């Protein structure tokens, strides 16, 4: 069977910036009235000039460092010329090294990333560019009432937002590898705190696929990472089928049809291939000095791989648990903060990995921080873990409490104090349960004089019988009193 080769182009917005790439409009263009986050520069007014954002270069360089890229000595920008209504200037300011030139003037070149053990992908190029505006929707002729009326609504709030493009070599052989890689990239971006990957449209991906000696097909317009795998599988099947029927695969660009879940041929336009790149005359050459890179490297936040290693070594966690924890930075942060409060990494990680994670749907986060979706923080987790470890409550009750915390944000002890769960009646009902246990555990009671642990043993039995639904403190008191009476 011929080898499948997949390469990716990932676009990620530097959402953590305050301003756009070339002007001082707000980088966070979301949830605003149309065309209210614009200025002469990003709206492409005559006479406006791009003014480069220093922080954008820093962030982009951090990505390049994290992906092991060679850094340029001189950074330059270029114009990519093509007409499209979402492009205010009808060219995009991006970066470009003319083919054949071994001069690196992009943010990064020739990097690599081990995305799971023993699987490495080569990073071809990392570049910094501006995002276009958005074509919101088309008003079809039928809706507008007229015979020929039809138009598009355009919102330029997004135009000019800083975008980092990561281009890989065609080193993937399988769509599953692609998904794992994308997870890894997402996690790295989160750790670098340059991109909130949960925001809709903050990370986009184009792919190219070829089989054997066949031509390369580009797939664009894939809305979400989830669909990348689907689009690739569809495209591979399509190309393989063509191969079986001895039909030649054309080198072309195809669009992912989100509704029908297929790739469709784009109308090929000759203009698309002739972008007439040339150096952007309004932006000077930016000197990247060694000192800048060294300084940036020394200030780099811990990356997922480093953190996983540290978790295994410092907390004696398993490879698997560490992996799950570090995958999302917020989760790993929650774990470490909880461990500071209650020094039991094992039980805390256990609570997070096997219980808490079940409450988080990353698809529906939509960029909001975790604590807005679930009202839980390190204090809750630490206390819950301790209560269970100290046998104050059993796991079943704790799980119920967890559900409540997620919704209300109340502390576990408060829930216990207030809750019906622990208030199986008054002392009288508790006494009834305890008496039942005393009846069946006579041997233990006789040992009580010699063995001080019997009280706790009996409490365990009572808790078992009541499925944990009583106040253990109160029960223990009664048990101790009753044992005294027995003497």
């Amino acid at each position: 069977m011929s080898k499948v080769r997949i390469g990716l182009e990932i676009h990620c917005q530097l959402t953590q910036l305050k301003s756009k790439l070339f002007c001082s409009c707000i980088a966070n263009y979301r949830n605003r009235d149309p065309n209210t986050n614009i200025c002469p520069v990003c709206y492409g007014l005559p006479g406006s000039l791009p003014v480069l954002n220093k922080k954008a270069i820093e962030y982009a360089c951090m990505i390049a460092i994290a992906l092991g890229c060679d850094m340029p000595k001189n950074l330059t920008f270029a114009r990519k010329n093509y007409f499209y209504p979402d492009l205010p200037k009808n060219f995009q300011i991006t970066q470009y090294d003319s083919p054949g030139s071994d001069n690196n003037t992009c943010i990064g070149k020739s990097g690599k990333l081990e995305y799971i053990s023993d699987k490495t992908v080569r990073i071809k190029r990392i570049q910094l560019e501006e995002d276009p505006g958005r074509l919101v929707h088309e008003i079809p002729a039928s809706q507008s009432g007229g015979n020929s009326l039809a138009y598009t609504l355009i919102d330029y709030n997004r135009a000019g937002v800083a975008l980092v493009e990561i281009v890989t070599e065609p080193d993937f052989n399988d769509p599953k590898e692609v998904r794992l890689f994308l997870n890894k990239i997402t996690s790295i971006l989160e750790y670098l705190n340059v991109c909130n990957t949960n925001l809709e449209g903050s990370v986009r991906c184009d792919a190219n696929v070829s089989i054997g000696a066949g031509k390369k097909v580009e797939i664009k317009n894939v809305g979400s990472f989830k669909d990348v795998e689907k689009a690739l599988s569809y495209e591979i099947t399509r190309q393989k089928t063509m191969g079986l029927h001895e039909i030649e695969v054309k080198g072309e660009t195809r669009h992912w049809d989100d509704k029908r879940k297929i790739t469709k041929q784009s109308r090929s336009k000759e203009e698309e291939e002739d972008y007439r790149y040339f150096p952007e005359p309004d932006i000077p050459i930016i000197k990247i000095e060694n000192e800048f890179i060294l300084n940036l490297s020394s200030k780099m936040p811990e990356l997922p791989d480093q953190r996983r290693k540290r978790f295994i070594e410092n907390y004696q966690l398993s490879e698997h648990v560490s992996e799950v924890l570090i995958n999302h930075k917020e989760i790993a942060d929650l774990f470490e903060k909880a461990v500071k409060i209650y020094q039991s990494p094992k039980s805390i990680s256990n609570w997070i990995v096997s219980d808490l994670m079940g409450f988080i749907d990353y698809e529906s986060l939509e960029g909001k921080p975790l604590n807005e979706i679930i009202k839980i923080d390190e204090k809750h987790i630490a206390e819950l873990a301790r209560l269970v470890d100290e046998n104050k409550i059993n796991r079943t009750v704790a799980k119920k409490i967890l559900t409540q915390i997620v919704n209300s944000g109340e502390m576990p002890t408060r829930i216990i104090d207030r809750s019906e769960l622990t208030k199986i009646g008054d002392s009288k009902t508790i006494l009834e349960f305890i008496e039942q246990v005393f009846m069946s555990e006579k041997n233990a009671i006789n040992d009580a004089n010699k063995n001080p642990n019997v009280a706790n043993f009996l409490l365990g039995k009572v808790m078992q019988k009541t499925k944990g639904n009583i106040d253990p403190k109160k029960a223990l008191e009664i048990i101790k009193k009753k044992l005294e009476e027995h003497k």
Partner: protein
Amino acid sequence: MISQEDLHHISKLSKIHLSEKEFEIYSMQIEKIIEYLDKLDEINLNESNDYKISITKNICELRNDVHVPFTGNFKRMRKNDDEGFVKGPKMT
């Protein structure tokens, strides 16, 4: 030499439509201009008799990442407004 195809291509690329008559005039004029520019062909790109011509800046000279709202008024210049959206031609 600039061929008919070349001119069709650049007219398409630059999104400027040419009538048949214009096409004739422009192809003649542009042909002459390009011929004049061909003088550049004599230049040897490998000779090192040149001088740095671009402005160079350090990162520290660039703009700080702060939001400054634009206070001017776009209303007077805006065309094709549709409740805040810009109305553009249909794309399909």
